[in-house]
């Protein structure tokens, strides 16, 4: 197991050699992830591990891919999508054009879920979904729109629980253990790498989703990221976080108003 001081050394070196700053990531999870890859790759001495990270660029990339937690689902938390479907999309639908940002989109399941909702609301043609993540590998998967077929049963249940009434199997083509989602959905998506630690606002959006990403950041970084979203959100736009995340520690009262019980806030000032 890695010592605390070794973890800090790794953080410093990764920053010094590659410019990636894990310094504001929550230590408890970061340490677990680093320990996991240390064991997985069969290291016994920390300095061997450290020099591999320092001098092998591909290995550094592997570290970033493995440290970031990419677990995701389609229609994760159906109750959340129900609110998006019934309360948010009708509001956004009155606009001539809809811009949505998925920050920390991972392999894209969330983005395809949103595209399905937009399509069913008749809004997809006038929407653009920007989907970003720091991890390049997951973005490659997301672009393809290919997910494991074995997940489809659960996803179609989630879809139904979120209020979906169509035949979910119509949205993909099943083939050798994979489900390839229709190109029509992907046509309105733009994927690119964006690092919430260091990159800036790049557009103005009507809806920003950043779910289950802030949990990996400490309070200071959470504040930075929320501020970045605030700069990127139009007045009366919506910000959606994960079910256990909150704006409470990051932004003063009065600027945002929370909807119902879900973790969705509207920018009112």
């Amino acid at each position: 197991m890695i010592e605390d001081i070794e973890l800090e050394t790794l953080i410093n070196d990764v920053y010094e050699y590659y410019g990636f700053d894990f310094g504001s990531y929550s230590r408890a999870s970061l340490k677990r992830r680093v320990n996991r890859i240390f064991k997985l790759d069969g290291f016994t001495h920390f300095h061997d591990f450290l020099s591999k990270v320092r001098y092998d660029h591909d290995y550094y990339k592997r570290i970033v891919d493995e440290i970031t937690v990419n677990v995701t689902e389609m229609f994760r938390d159906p109750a959340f999508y129900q609110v998006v479907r019934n309360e948010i999309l009708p509001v956004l639908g009155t606009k001539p054009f809809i811009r949505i940002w998925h920050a920390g989109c991972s392999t894209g399941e969330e983005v395809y879920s949103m595209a399905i909702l937009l399509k069913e609301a008749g809004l997809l043609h006038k929407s653009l979904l920007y989907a970003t993540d720091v991890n390049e590998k997951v973005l490659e998967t997301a672009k393809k729109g290919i997910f494991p077929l074995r997940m489809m049963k659960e996803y179609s249940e989630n879809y139904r629980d979120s209020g979906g009434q169509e035949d979910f199997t119509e949205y993909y083509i099943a083939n050798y253990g994979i489900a390839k989602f229709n190109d029509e959905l992907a046509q309105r998506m733009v994927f690119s790498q964006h690092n919430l630690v260091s990159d800036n606002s790049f557009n103005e959006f009507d809806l920003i989703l950043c779910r289950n990403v802030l949990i990996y950041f400490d309070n200071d970084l959470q504040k930075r990221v929320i501020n970045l979203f605030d700069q990127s959100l139009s007045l009366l736009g919506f910000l959606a976080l994960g079910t256990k995340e909150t704006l409470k520690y990051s932004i003063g009262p009065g600027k945002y108003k929370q909807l119902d019980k879900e973790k969705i806030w509207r920018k009112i000032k």
Partner: protein
Amino acid sequence: MEENKVIADCKLVIIGGSAGSLHALMQILPELPQIYSFAIVLVLHRKNTDEETLEELIRLKSTVNVNVVEDKVPLLPGFIYVAPSNYHLLFEKNDTLSLDTSEKVNYSRPSIDVSFESASEVYKQQLVGILLSGSNADGTQGLNMIKSFGGTIVVQDPESAEMPFMPNNAIANCNPDYVLNNQGIIEFITSINNQE
């Protein structure tokens, strides 16, 4: 109760359980006094996604106050926290809780091992881990880690557990400081509650 270990200054009691543990908790929690000196965290495997129902149930049954778990909430003495379903629950050095959606461990999220291990590094000898009924091997590895950091480990007496597999697995692979039935667990928790 056997007095084989003195617990000084306990900061945190984590109770882990799977199948059959809710029943045990519903006997234990209502009997606990007002807690002053430590927090209680429950890490339970549950099918449904509704921790609010469980929190409600505890509010009804227990005199110990419930604090809802959200990312980075402070861990305060005198409160019960319930690990939300579908997240692992981790402990930060600054006495806050973190959540993590990474892969299931022992087919479980939250995993008891994950919480035990994370807490053991932060709270060391000020940590008590209690493992209740269940039919899964989760918890055993975590108990060992608590022990290796000087904490105290308690296992529900398999005789009194609805599902003895989990406590039995722990007893076979760890060296618990106490093996207790529900009444014993109530007395144990009460005895480490520092009222000063």
